[in-house]
């Protein structure tokens, strides 16, 4: 076996109609077609899904953990962005 590894792919699966695709994990494959088949074999053996997306991990542009202070913390002090300041009228259930 060659030491050079196949590219890494991220796998997203839609569990049933109407739901969104969710990230379930990653795997290695030489091309997109192989990635799709490997995802089918590795992640849907127990009927976990009806649709699969694969994206080469290289194509994921991620936020930088070292910037998390300026990136995420400002939102913490803005509790008014949550719709928690409304009185729910009587008679409305399931809220």
């Amino acid at each position, binding site marked *: 076996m060659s030491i050079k590894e196949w590219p890494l792919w991220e796998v997203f699966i839609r569990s049933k109609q109407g739901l969104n695709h969710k990230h379930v994990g990653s795997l290695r494959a*030489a091309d997109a077609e192989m990635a799709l088949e490997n995802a089918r074999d590795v992640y849907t053996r127990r009927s976990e899904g009806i649709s699969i997306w694969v994206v080469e991990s290289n194509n994921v542009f991620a936020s930088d953990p070292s910037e998390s202070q300026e990136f995420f913390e400002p939102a913490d002090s803005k509790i008014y962005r949550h719709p928690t300041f409304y009185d729910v009228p009587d008679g409305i259930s399931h809220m």
Partner: protein
Amino acid sequence: MNQAHVDFVLRIADDSLILGHRLSEWCGHGPVLEEDIAMTNIALDLIGQATSLLNHAASLQGEGRTGDDLAFLRFDREYRNLLLVEQPNGDFGMTMMRQFLFDAYRTILFERLQSSSDEMIAAIAEKSLKETKYHLKHSSEWVIRLGDGTEESHARIQESLNTLWRYANELFYTDAVDDEMRNAGILPDLSDLRQQWENTVNHVFQEATLTIPANNWKQEGGRKGMHSEYLGYILAEMQYMQRAYPNMEW
């Protein structure tokens, strides 16, 4: 009991059983984790088909035996599988080539058997066809990838083709069993089986830049219970537990 009917079911069942066992030998030894799981999935599909078919054969026999008895307590000469499916795994390319030659045949067979007058066979064929279509997709893509890959992968899978080609002719073996099954409506018309199979195979080999070997030597015998030296070893491993500890369950 109709012996031809039993033999006919055993031929299909034993192909699944022996190839399933061969593929299961890869479990934990696959070239990469993903492919290890893929091959194990295919092996499990085949063992599942064998279970349904052997149970059916046992009930046709009507002698109180079960599918398990047929799988684990027959002698080598009583197995009806193709010589192709008992051939050793070799390298990964050899395994994929064996699988491809078989899948291309099996897809057509199951397509046709869906209209069998034996309703059990028709139902098993319908369920198995979905599995087999995927097996064919998987194996044909690997044959193309390796054939049209690097210089080494091309040379090695061409060598696999050269080795296995002599067993391909047995896919189209017919005898009195087939005639009787056709007359009974259990076996639908398969007169164009070879032509259909060659269409698939030629198309894939062209993309894979592989050449069918000129050597025309053809080996057959499995359908009549005459096997290569490999089947005995497979059965020794498969049947050991049931022979050593009769009736044990786990």
